Structures are given as C-alpha cells and as structure tokens.
C-alpha cells in the first residue's frame, strides 16, 4: 500500500514539467494506459492479502481518479493556452483591403431616366417607345410643323434623306401611339433624340422623356398637377415651380416650366442668369391640329403633352455644369453616381 504514495508524487512531479497536450497524453498513458503504472497496480490487486485488498483497492482507485482529474484539468488549461497561442500566431493585418469586385455603376442619365419613369408609372402612366430614325412626317408634319415652317428652326435636324431624319424629340411617339390606340391614354415615351448642335449645354445626342394624357376632360390644370407632382418627387417638395407662356407648334396653350435654381436656391447666380429660375420642361395642351392628324375629334378629346431633357434634369439634380461629361464616359465621373 505504501508504494501508492510515491506513485502519486512521481506523477505530480512529472505533471509539473508537462508543456503541451501530447506530453500530457503520453503521461496519461504512462500512468493510466493498459500497461500504465496505476493500471498495473490494479492488476496486482489479486496478489494482495484479502484483508488488505479492499483498502488497497480503494487507495489505488483514488489515485487513479486523482490522476484522471489532474490530467483533465491540465488538459483544458493546456488547450486554452494552445488556442491562445494559435490565435496570436494567426493574427492578420486587418487594415489590408478587402477583396471584392466592386459593382459597376449606372450611367447617371439612365439612373435619372429610370427615376423619371418610376414616378410617372406611379401616377398610372404607361411606357411606349418609337424609332430613333424617323419619318419627317411623324417628327414634324403630324406635329403641326409643315415644311417651310419657321418653328423647324427651333430644332436643328440631322437628315438621312429629305423625308427621313434622326428624331429631334420623342414627340413622334405621341403620333404613333394615337394612330393605333384610342383614349383614354396616359403615356410616357423615353428615348434618345438628336440635334446638330454642340456646346457646353448641347450635345448632338441626348435623352428625352415625352409624356401625354388624352381623355374627354383633360385641362391645363391637370397638366399643372401632374408636372408639379413630378417635380416635387424628382427634386424635393420644397422646390418652387412656375409655369409661363411659351410656344410649341404641337401644343396650344403652351408653357415652359421653371424650377427654383438648384445651384443658388433662387438667389440668382451665373447658371440661372440671375433670374433665380431654371427651365426644365416644355408642355401644353395638345393642339387640335395634332388630334385632327391622327383622326381624333378635337371637340370630344382634350389632352396635354410635355417633354423634358433627361440630361438637363440630371445636371440640375447633381449640379453638373457641362453636358459633354455624360458622353465622355470617364470612369472618374461615372463612379460618382
């Protein structure tokens, strides 16, 4: 029985010098393995005299439990230390950049174009499209601009032939739609348009959204509501809006719509030429001549139409001062939107 005590002591000595889990495992095997020191003591139990056997057995088992317990305790301690070490050794420089393919950007024109479309869709408008290369008839004549009409000077036209042109506005879609459908109509027509003109505020190609509404009881006051709602939605509810008389051959009465200058908040600056106002759209009541051209009875139907330049809206929205930026496609510009 006496040989149990030094065994325990020897174990404790050895345990103290253990530095890692595999040494601990070896130590455990040395004492508690099949041929371990403690196990072999249990195997010799039968050689102990019967009167001493229960006490000796108890003592050996106590040591066994003790060692088991100590190994376990030490094991979890060592494990903790090892994790700690590993974590330390695996530390990374978290300030290195993350790895990803950045999403591409929407072109600002399309971004705003879809915003415009969304707003009108929310008001119940449908979207229609038409060809970019168009008959003179749809672009001009059916819109009350016969050949030799001075109003044609308002739009510098690219010609393919005498009768075929690059559309100068998306208004021909108005004619195409009215030719094939009957009122009520609530349509917008977005798309590319072309005019032979280039400077800081003009490019030979730009985008327009034409819109129109035709029914038996549409008035100028409806036009005002729709456009005011639109402007308040695309800019802000505080944006001042004003309608002033103007002229378009295909609308009568006609209006130009201004918003309070977005650059100077209406105080007056270079951009708004000190007026505090910026023109944003053209609009009006569809001219009865246009209805006659598509076979609608102008006594029965009234309607309004409007048209806006998407570049213009985008420039005002983001304070961009040169329209040509849109078509240079400089990544440093595009990635800002």
């Amino acid at each position, binding site marked *: 029985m006496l040989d149990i005590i030094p065994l325990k002591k020897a174990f404790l000595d050895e345990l103290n010098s253990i530095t890692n889990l595999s040494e601990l495992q070896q130590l455990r095997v040395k004492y508690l393995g099949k041929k371990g020191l403690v196990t072999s003591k249990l195997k010799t139990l039968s050689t102990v005299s019967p009167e001493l056997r229960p006490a000796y057995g108890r003592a050996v088992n106590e040591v066994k439990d003790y060692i088991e317990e100590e190994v376990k305790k030490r094991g979890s301690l060592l494990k903790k230390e090892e994790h700690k070490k590993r974590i330390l050794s695996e530390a990374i420089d978290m300030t290195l950049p993350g790895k990803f393919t950045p999403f591409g950007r929407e072109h600002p024109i399309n971004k705003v174009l879809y915003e415009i479309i969304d707003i009108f869709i929310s008001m119940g408008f449908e979207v229609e499209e038409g060809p970019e290369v168009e008959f003179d008839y749809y672009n001009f004549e059916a819109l009350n601009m016969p050949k030799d009409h*001075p109003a044609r000077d308002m739009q510098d036209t690219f010609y393919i032939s005498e009768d075929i042109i*690059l559309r100068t506005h998306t208004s021909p879609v108005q004619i195409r739609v009215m030719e094939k459908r009957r009122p009520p109509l609530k349509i917008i027509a977005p798309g590319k348009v072309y005019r032979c003109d280039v400077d800081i505020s003009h490019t030979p190609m730009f985008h327009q959204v034409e819109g129109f509404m035709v029914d038996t009881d549409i008035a100028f006051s409806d036009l005002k509501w729709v456009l005011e709602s639109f402007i308040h939605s695309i800019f802000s509810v505080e944006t001042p809006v004003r309608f002033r008389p103007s002229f378009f051959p295909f609308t009568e009465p006609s209006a130009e719509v201004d918003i309070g200058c977005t650059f100077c908040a209406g105080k007056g600056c270079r951009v708004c030429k000190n007026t505090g106002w910026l023109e944003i759209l053209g609009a009006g009541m569809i001219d009865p001549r246009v209805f006659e051209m598509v076979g609608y009875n102008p006594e029965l139907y009234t309607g309004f139409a409007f048209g806006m330049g998407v570049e213009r809206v985008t420039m005002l929205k983001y304070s961009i001062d040169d329209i040509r930026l849109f078509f240079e*496609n400089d990544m440093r510009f595009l990635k800002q939107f």
Partner: protein
Amino acid sequence: MRVPFEWLREFVDISASPEEVAERLTMVGFEVEAMESVKDDTVFEVNVTPNRPDCLSILGIAREVSVAFRVPLKIHVCEIKGELPLSDFSVEIFNHELCSRYAGRVIKDVRISDSPEWIKTRLEKCGIRAINSVVDITNYVLLEFGHPLHAFDADTINGKKIKVGMPDTVLLQTPNSKLQTKIKTLDGVEREILGDSLLIWDAENPIAVAGVMGGLETEVNDSTANVFLESAYFEPFSIRRTSKRLNLISESSYRFERGADIEFLEKALNRAALMIREIAGGTIYEIIDVYPVRYVPEPIKIRYDRINRILGTEISNADMLKILKKLGITTEDKGDFFIVYPSAYRRDIKRDSDVAEEIARSYGYDRIPSRIPRSPLSSGKLDKKMMNIIRIREAMRKSGFTEVINYSFMSPSSLDVIAVPQADRRRNVIVINNPLRQDESLLRTTLIPALIGNFKYNLDRGIRDIRFFEISSVFEDIGRPLPLEELRLGGIFYRDKTPSLWKEDVEGFFITKGAIESMFEELKINEYSFSSSSELFLHKGQASDIYVRGAYAGYLGVLGPEIVERLDLKKQRPEIVVFELNLDLLLTLIPDSIKYNEIPRYPYVERDIAIIVDESLSASEIKEIIRTFPSELIEEVSVFDSYRGSNIPEGKKSLAFNIRYRAKDRTLTDDEVEELHASLVEHILEKTGGELRR
C-alpha cells in the same frame, strides 16, 4: 430680339424698374433671357417665339407691356403733309399669291450722310451697324415697328418700273425680254435665283431678292440723290423657302417668314419717309400702293365653356372679353359663345385653343389651379421588355461592369479598324447628310468601336481596371425607308497585370464569359453554347460565338494582336476582352414565368473522372457527351480542372469532371452508382478516344 429699355419707354409711360418689366414680360410669354447694361440704359434680350412676329419690334413688346402694366400705348402719328404727286413711277405685282401688297414712296433730293448719334446709338444697342442715314432709318423703323423696309437708289431703277414676281412668271408674261436670274446682293455675293423665288425687278433686271436682301446695283450710298422706299407684304412660306435655299437670313427675311403686318405697312413707310425728310432732307412724293388681296379677318366662333374646359378654370364670360379687349383683339358677344376677329398682326390666332392661350396668358398661368386629373385610374407598368432590360443592366453591374452611353454615330473608318469584311451586314450603314463632323457621319452598326474608345480614354487617364457595358440600338440599312434598329448589349474588359495584393489567376476572357453566363442565369436562359468565332478582329484562339437556343446571339473574345497594335497602348500584350449580344433576340428567349421545381428529397452521390484527351477536344464537347448519356440519374456535370504540362503527353490535355448522381424516388446504393459510373467512363473514353488519367 434686343430691346433697349429707354426706347421701350417712348411707347409706354411706366415707372417700373427694368427688372420688374423683365419679370412681367417673362410671365406673359416673352422670356427675357438676359439683361445687359449699355451706357446708362438696360437692354433686354427677349426670346420671341416663332408664333409672335408682331413682337419682333419695340412697338410689339411695348404693346405687351402696356397690357401687363395697364398703361396706354403711345404710337407716333405718321401723317405726311406736303407730299407731291407722283407721275413717273409704276409698280406691278405678277404673283399676287406671294405678294398681296406692295407700297412705295419716292423721296427726291436727299443729302445722304451719317445718321445722328441718337439713331446710331439705338441701332448699336440692338446689334445693327450704322451705314448711312437712309439705310439706318429703314433699319430703325424695322426695329421700332417690326416692318422690314427697303430703300433703292431710284436713279438706278431702269424704266422707273418696279415688278414683283418669280422669274418663271415674269418670263412668261414678258416673253421678249432677256431676263437674267442672277443677282449680286448687298453682301457682294452673286446669286443664282431659282424660278420660283420671288424677286423685285426693274424694267430689265432683278434688283432685290424680295424680303430677303437688296441688290448691290441699286444700293443707296453717299452719292444717292433720289430714293425709292419699299414697304411690302410677302407670303411667309415663299420668303422662308428662298432664304433657306440661298442660306441667307436677314433681319427682313426673319420677320417676313414669320409674318408681317399687311395693314400696318403703310404707317411704317410713312414713318421712315418722315424721318428721311427730317434727317436727310428732300421731298416726299405720294404713295404708290398696290394692294390686290385685301386683309379680311377670319372670324372665330368660340364657346365660353370651351375655354374653361381647356384651361380647367372658371373665368366668367365678361372677364374673358375684358382680357381680349385689353389685348387689342376685337370680339363680339353672342350669349353662349363669342366671335373673335383677329387683327392683321395676330394671324397666329386661328382657333379656340389660340384664344384660350391669350386668355390664360393674361389671366396668369400661376392663377390656373392645379387639379388631380379626373381620368379613371389606370395601372402604370413597365412592359416585359423594359423590365428585362433593367434585369440585364443589374446583372452586368453586379459583375463589375459600369454602364456607358455613347453617341449613335461612328466614323467611316471605324469598321475598317475592326476589320469588318466588305460583304458583312455591318457595312449596310445609314449615312447622315449633314453631320457635325466627318467622323460622326454614320449611324453605328456595332457598339464595339465606341467601347474601344471608352477603354482607351480611361486607360490614358490611369484607370487600370476597366469594365464597361452599353445597351443601345444599332442601325442597319435593310432597303426599307426606315433602318432596322436592333438593341445591343456590348461590353469591354481590361485589367492591368501589374502586381497586386490579391492575385487572381483567371483570365479576362473567363471573367467576361462569367459575367455573360451569370446574366443568362439571372434571366433563366439555360440553353446556350460558346463555339469558336470567325470575327476577324478577335484573337483566333480566344474568341467565341454565342448561341442561345440554337440561334446566333453574338460574340465574345479577346481583341486580336493587329487591332491592339493599332491602338498604340504602350502596354505589353494587353488582354482586352469585348462582347456584343443581340438583345432584341435575347429578350424573346427569356421565359415569361417561373415554375417551382420540387427540391430533391434523396441524397446525391458524387464521382470524379479525369481523362487525357486531344488538345482539340473542348470541355463543352465532353460535357455534352456526358449530358446525353442515357441515364436519368445524372443530375449535374461540372468541369473542375483543365491541365496541360508535365505528365501529360504533347498535344494532349487533362480534363476533370465532377458528376453528381441522384434518383428522385430513392437513395442510390453504392453498387448501383459504381456500375453506372463505370459504364459512363467507358462511354466517354469510347467517344473521345481518350484515356483515364491516374
């Protein structure tokens, strides 16, 4: 139209500031686009719309101001006293339909000199150069009253005869004359006049292009003693046609083509004659006035309620008439309706909507209420095509491609640069007759040249990772009046190979291909294939045509070395990948709806196979062999390795596939899969002539 404020005040006695006047003019439809301080005056730059030629004058603008500010309009009295009878001048109009009134006066014994300062100053403010007193006075009256006048040196008019007509007509009616149709105009240019352009002739020759510009021969200069002053009305369309043809726009033609005031022209003539007598002396002779087609106002019948229906207002009948009266428009009340008699200077008023505009303008657009349309509710919605375009744009952006928009134009050399064969569809170009620049003279038939341009522009500015896409139409002449407009999706990829922290071994080709495939996935387009392309501008070994459900949809590939060399990029063998897809086709192949498939309930079993095959055999061919193997248990096949190099014989490569087996209704047993896989392997080896890699 430039309007000096002090001149304006000669017609209307107002105390308002220039700013206030500008604001009011803008709000009644005459936008003051700019205000300029000139000496001690303010000059307005007024945008006069084409429908209001009456306001291309100080008087016209003053009339609007007088209405807006409710002050009377003062017009000069232009009565001539002491005129002498005229016996030796005659006027004949050959084409009444183009000239319905022609008036003139002879003023004899004038002494031509410089104009007095006050005339010069006013002309200058309006942007007109002073010449001599008589010419300046005609310009002065043009600006003041808006009616164009012309002064001839009366002694240069052969036969003291004025004829107004087109060469065709004049020739027909004076058969024996040797009429010439060439005229040297005041700007010194000799011009050939077409047979249906209106001219002013003397007994022998054309002496002016009617309403556009006078002739040099009959010009009034310092030695002129006797003047013939013309004041006429020419038909707008005729003047416009002539001015367009001659590419000659003058202050006169600008007004005549918009419409002059046929009634007022006599007053303008008298005003100028009086001014000439006062400044240059001389004797005024009595008026010659040939007025074959008298102006008769076309009465317009309008219902009062119609006006309110157009405007959405509740303006009373009396108020409507009051507004129109203020505007100088004659009306007659008939109970439910009224009649409008437009004056000769308001020929733009033709129907009820025109009258509605006049009323609205004066009433104030700001006073018209905003009203929610009473039209029935409708569901606004994007059509499928547009929704799918949005999905495509999103898919491209998620793959890192940024959207660009380029002009629809291209240069005639663009197609040569990308080696498009002569017989290719892309050569069926639409040509613009009047391009701004020669290199923008065609409508593009491919998006690629512009995308290469975008790439180079950005590379030159230090951008090292370039991924662009564009969705735009291309245009092809197909022998019909209008070209075929086809919607395309094009893109370009380039990434600098300079070392970076995060290495990626995948080639640009596969990144771009991956972008296209993930877009197909997003659109639920699953039957597509890539096969080698014959596009000449692409790298022969790195270019595929793309087929979707068996139809050619476009191509993808690396730019060929010759093309890249021409771009002069100063980069070692850059890998630039481009693609172009026919979206119109693709959009028709997107399934309309999604139907749910049951999620498999039983587990799968995986097996790999690596085989060594000829270089020429493509992964997709082998995949196809596996896919068509007659077993319903093959669920999925994917390539996970492609290798050539050590251990692989020359001319061969190793391809490895992962095959996933699954049954819908039970758990597969190992034996079952073993047997199936073995026969599949055998099948592949037989079909490819390859061998297993061990």
